[in-house]
């Protein structure tokens, strides 16, 4: 199995489905330690993204991810908009003109996304943000030869759940100080869904290197 435009679209569409399903859940997580709009923001932005990419025939991953990034930047807003938007813009640069990607290329693109996230948001692992899912997941993928859907799902879930233990240092939840402990970070939860969706693309077949 290869990662081409079809797989990338499936990834985004699957992710959007999960976001729509979990819109209220994500909003509730954000109500607990933020301002209660994460589900709304993500649902609005990714629906627009899916509308966009399903109306265009893409030749390569770069232009697909560019449209994803641009749509997210313009439609999500809040903190998650620039972050997810930047992630896909960085991936699009890494995959410029590429019709398909092998594991190494895909993982490098995701690593570029992570870099973008960290530059944009200035958060570190442990700050109780989506970085707490992204960084260990990218590290795991970088060290794997193939993408193992099962392990990817398990790890991202574990990392998402671990944010419950943390005290927020970045984002809106930081204002709560110690009161942020005991709640899953909403952006970590949506990032978990992103990686689960990616895992589903690879279910039943592993990407050859």
């Amino acid at each position, binding site marked *: 199995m290869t990662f081409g435009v079809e797989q990338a679209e499936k990834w985004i569409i699957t992710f959007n489905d999960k976001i729509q399903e979990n819109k209220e859940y994500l909003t509730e997580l954000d109500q607990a*330690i933020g301002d*209660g709009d994460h589900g709304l923001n993500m649902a609005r932005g990714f629906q627009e993204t899916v509308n966009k990419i399903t109306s265009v025939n893409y030749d390569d991953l770069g232009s697909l991810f560019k449209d994803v990034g641009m749509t997210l*930047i313009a439609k*999500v807003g*809040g903190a998650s908009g620039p972050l997810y938007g930047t992630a896909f813009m960085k991936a699009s640069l890494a995959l410029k003109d590429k019709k398909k990607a092998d594991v190494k290329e895909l993982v490098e693109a995701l690593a570029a996304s992570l870099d973008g996230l960290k530059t944009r948001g200035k958060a570190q692992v442990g700050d109780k943000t989506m970085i707490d899912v992204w960084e260990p997941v990218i590290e795991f993928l970088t060290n794997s030869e193939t993408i193992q859907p099962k392990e990817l799902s398990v790890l991202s879930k574990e990392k998402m759940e671990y944010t419950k233990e943390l005290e927020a240092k970045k984002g*809106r939840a930081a*204002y709560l100080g110690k009161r942020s402990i005991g709640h899953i970070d909403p952006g970590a939860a949506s990032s978990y869904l992103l990686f689960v969706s990616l895992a589903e693309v690879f279910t039943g077949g592993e990407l050859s290197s």
Partner: protein
Amino acid sequence: MKKLMNDPNQVVKDMLAGMVAAHFNQIKRLPDTTVIVRKDAPIQGKVGLVSGGGSGHEPAHAGYVGKGMLDGAVCGEVFTSPTPDQIFEAIKAVDSGKGVLLIIKNYTGDIMNFEMAAEMAEAEGIKVAKVVVNDDVAVEDSTYTTGRRGIAGTVFVHKIAGALAEQGATLEEVEAVANKVVKNVRSMGMALTPCIVPAAGKPGFELGENEIEIGIGIHGEPGIEKTQIQPADEIVQILLGKILDDLKLENNDKVAVMINGLGATPLMELYIMNKKISEILKEKNIHVHETFVGEFMTSLEMAGCSISLLKLDDQLIELLDAQADTIVFKK
């Protein structure tokens, strides 16, 4: 949730339509955007001022668009920072060649979106400066965290930077005075009730029949501490106490005071708060140059208030007193 609205997902669009219909003499909306600018924008020879943020804080920020304050306001979804493309449209619409100052409240989302917009503008050759307002002393200021939030004190930045811009000052000068305001303004708020984001349909937190939240932000998020309801005088002591601890005023210092209702608080209660505020300041021999009482930066239909103190010098006094003619703020 009972609200005067049609569709919870259309509240910002409907609001903007109603706002432009009401104030068509003063403002206009950039086509296909959520950007409100002065009817006569861009003003030749004047630095442009753009602010904005999530909606739900009305009259902030569009209510401050007009002579002597903002040139443009970018309205995001409810409590959600607007997106860079919208902010970029605002920048382009108000730039007369003298550059544009972005007045940003210190929230991760706002910072990132405004930064991206600034990058876009600079790429097109527009001079842009940014000032980040972080007046909320409820939140500890630390370089390891996000730092303090920007709340009602932001309105003083609009007023004072706007007045200087109106005089024809350069972008650097306007930026400098905006930063001076930021350095000298402190605020803190509290809530009696939560508020409901229309599309979410339920409150962001719960408060018991006798509970209040101290150190509330303006996004329906919980505050720093939940306590029992207390007399207004005690609440003033908590909020003003924290502000004074941080602002370190001295004998004979001059201040402007803002008592800001969060949405559902009767003016009566804000004036009751001011009774004690004015007594405390008098006792400390701090001179109140002017007191602003009303709704300046709200949080939908939240009941509660914030207090802001701005330490003044001669320059700030002159600019605070200068003429302003916006939708809600007139001098």
